[in-house]
């Protein structure tokens, strides 16, 4: 029996070593094989200050919002938010008609809200070869579209040199896709351009009728598009005059693709080809189709937390957690003596394990989340208390220590299981409640409590049990009743 438990000790020690390593601060992302991940605590909005905005589809009552449209709207908003330069923005679909935006540490909330609410702008702009390095940089492209007073101005300014209609039904624009070819991309850093270079807008998304993922004659993936009548006119004129040049596709100031104009496109139908993966092609098609939000959104809730309030709470809650843990371990040691000390060791493993899980998932740590964690320490202690009380009963009735440990576990287990399952049921319901509103506080609390409960079940049946057997099996209880607090 004892040998068996000594064997079990090894995996537990390995687990402890692993959790300690995860729990240590990792300022840089950790690389294992090809996977690179940041192992760091993600702090919630209430702990570092910032802005939270909840938006709702603004449609007539009774109409149904398509999940696909909501997802697209989320992507568009994320694109805009990325331009704000916030370190870790969160944009989530919440429930079936809402989108939650969280911007930690943002200073100018008025500007941020304005950015989120604006209507997205899709533009086709004139590009030079060297501009390829701008692909994907948020807000790198400033165009003359916004500078001209009327919307039609850009149309009026398009080159008037018309060429004969092309013979092919669909013009082709074989392109570089979203990855710039490197020939001239070693130019000066992009930030330098943006300040002074203004690009010319050929046409806006308003003239685009549709865009779909498609294949060209040789089977390469691409995105085919259809223009409105006016768009076909403008586009035909422009492409005829600029064959061999680049055409920039710009969404909210970000260059998302830069195909080469292979031949004039005068029929209003074209295809953009390149080395696309299916995801890239789909994403480009979606962005072309929904340059503006597919569903109108309005802000229904917004919360701002000042940074000072958050910083203060974090320090204090962490301190409270440490004090709480210290008081509980002291109590356990005083009341349950030797088994209590063993439980303290198991409790420490529990705390290490839970924190490691938080970092791995990663769980966004909010104040209620910390409270949930501290409460779960109470739950973890309860499992040990239940076991020890049963153990003491068995010892009093004269059983050997080894036997008493096993009986203590098997008798206490139904209580532990049933009581914790009911807590998990409550957590699940809370999580559901929180998700529908993007109420990240409620969600954070239920998630940390549930994870804590599960980790406590695990440590109680593996760690505590093994430790107890390894330390106590060879002791004769009758000789030292004081060690067991009997």
């Amino acid at each position, binding site marked *: 029996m004892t040998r068996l438990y000594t064997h079990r000790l090894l995996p537990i020690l390995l687990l402890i070593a692993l959790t300690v390593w995860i729990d240590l601060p990792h300022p840089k992302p950790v690389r294992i094989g090809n996977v690179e991940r940041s192992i760091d605590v993600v702090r919630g909005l209430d702990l570092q200050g910032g802005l939270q905005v909840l938006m709702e589809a603004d449609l007539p009552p009774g109409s149904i919002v398509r999940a696909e449209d909501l997802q697209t709207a989320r992507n568009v908003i994320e694109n805009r938010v990325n331009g704000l330069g916030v370190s870790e923005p969160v944009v989530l679909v919440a429930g079936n008609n809402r989108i939650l935006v969280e911007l930690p540490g943002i200073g100018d909330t008025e500007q941020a809200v304005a950015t989120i609410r604006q209507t997205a702008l899709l533009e086709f702009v004139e590009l030079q070869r060297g501009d390829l390095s701008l692909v994907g940089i948020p807000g790198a492209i400033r165009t003359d579209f916004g500078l001209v007073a009327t919307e039609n101005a850009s149309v009026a300014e398009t080159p008037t040199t018309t060429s004969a209609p092309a013979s092919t039904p669909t013009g082709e624009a074989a392109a570089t896709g979203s990855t710039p070819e490197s020939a001239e991309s070693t130019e000066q850093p992009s930030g330098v351009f943006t300040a002074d270079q203004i690009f010319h807008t050929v046409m806006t998304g308003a003239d685009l009728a549709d865009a779909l993922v498609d294949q060209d004659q040789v089977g390469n993936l691409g995105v085919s598009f259809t223009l409105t009548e006016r768009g076909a006119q403008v586009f035909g004129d422009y492409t005829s005059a600029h064959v061999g040049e680049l055409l920039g596709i710009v969404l909210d100031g970000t260059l998302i693709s830069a195909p080469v104009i292979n031949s004039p496109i005068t029929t209003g139908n074209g295809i953009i080809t390149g080395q696309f993966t299916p995801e890239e092609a789909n994403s480009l098609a979606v962005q072309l189709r929904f340059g503006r939000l597919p569903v109108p959104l309005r802000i229904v809730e917004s919360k701002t937390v000042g940074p000072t309030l958050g910083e203060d709470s974090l320090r204090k809650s962490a301190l409270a957690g440490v004090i709480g843990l210290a008081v509980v371990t002291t109590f356990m040691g005083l009341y349950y003596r030797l088994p209590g000390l063993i439980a303290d060791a198991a409790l420490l493993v529990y705390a290490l394990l839970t924190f490691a899980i938080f970092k791995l998932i990663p769980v966004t740590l909010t104040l*209620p989340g910390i409270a949930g964690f501290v409460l779960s320490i109470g739950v973890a202690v309860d499992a040990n208390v239940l076991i020890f009380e049963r153990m003491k009963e068995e010892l009093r009735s004269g059983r050997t220590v080894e036997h008493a440990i096993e009986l203590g576990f098997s008798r206490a287990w139904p209580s532990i299981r049933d009581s914790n399952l009911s807590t998990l049921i409550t957590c699940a319901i809370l999580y559901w409640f929180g998700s529908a509103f993007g109420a990240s506080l409620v969600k954070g609390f239920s998630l940390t409590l549930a994870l804590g409960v599960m980790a406590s079940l695990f440590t109680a049946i593996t760690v505590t049990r093994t430790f107890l057997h390894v330390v106590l099996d060879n002791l004769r209880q009758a000789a030292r009743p004081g060690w067991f607090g009997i």
Partner: protein
Amino acid sequence: MLNIVGKRYWFFGLSLLLIVPGIAALAIWGLPLAIDFTGGSLLEVRFEGAQAPAPAQVVDLYMELGYGEPLVQSAAQAEIIARSRTLDESERAELVREMQSRFGGTVTVLRFESVGPAVGAEVTRRAAGAVGLAALGILAYITYAFRSVPGAYRYGLAAIVAMLHDVAVVLGVAAILGHFFGWEVDALFLTALLTIIGFSVHDTIVVFDRIRENQRLHRRLQYELLVNHSIVQTLDRSINTQLTVMLTLLALLLFGGVTTRRFVTILLIGILSGTYSSIFNAAQLLVVWHNREWRHWFGRRA
């Protein structure tokens, strides 16, 4: 042995003594619902390098800007909390600019929350739904877990009644604290309430589980004695677990930040009530049901 079950009507009486004032407070003053449920805006600002304006001055400012009449509170360190109708971000900015120019100093926004009325109403509906669903889920689970015991659903119902006891205590306390100290029932409060429900049932199940086990071991024992025996056997555990949870919560209360203070206080009260109801009420209800004691509550004693 301690006779906890025999004195059950005394303990029921004590529970009523705790619940009735709270229910009365609820009936008279109602629940102090926060903007999370009612909709509206809350603006908390600090004035640095100047004295905070009097609440009446802030009310005037809101009225002049056409933002309706707010409820304004002064807080520590030259801070002001104003609750008003739902404002948007540009209205908030306007307000802060006006405060700065009118009352002087630097105005720092500590907190700005704005909830549309429709969202508030839906949150309320969902919250009620969440509590109801939690109760049903727990009832179903207990009935399943105790399926080997005759009348398993009684255990579920008794646990739910004990849980409602704790909900009543906490809501009553919230109404009283809301009236006298301006406490609010917000999303965090709801979180606390649902945790209390979880823990209350957790505690109750431990006692019920012992009854279930003892029923197998002592088939001849009278039910009332069996229940009392089970409660006494789990008493050490109930008190010790209660103590450790109280200790961690006390640590949070004394050393934690201001933001969680009310949350933790509500939890403390609720979990204390939960332990009380699981030791002194829940299992006793089973005995009352077993003996069908309600036949003797009114009229002649048989």
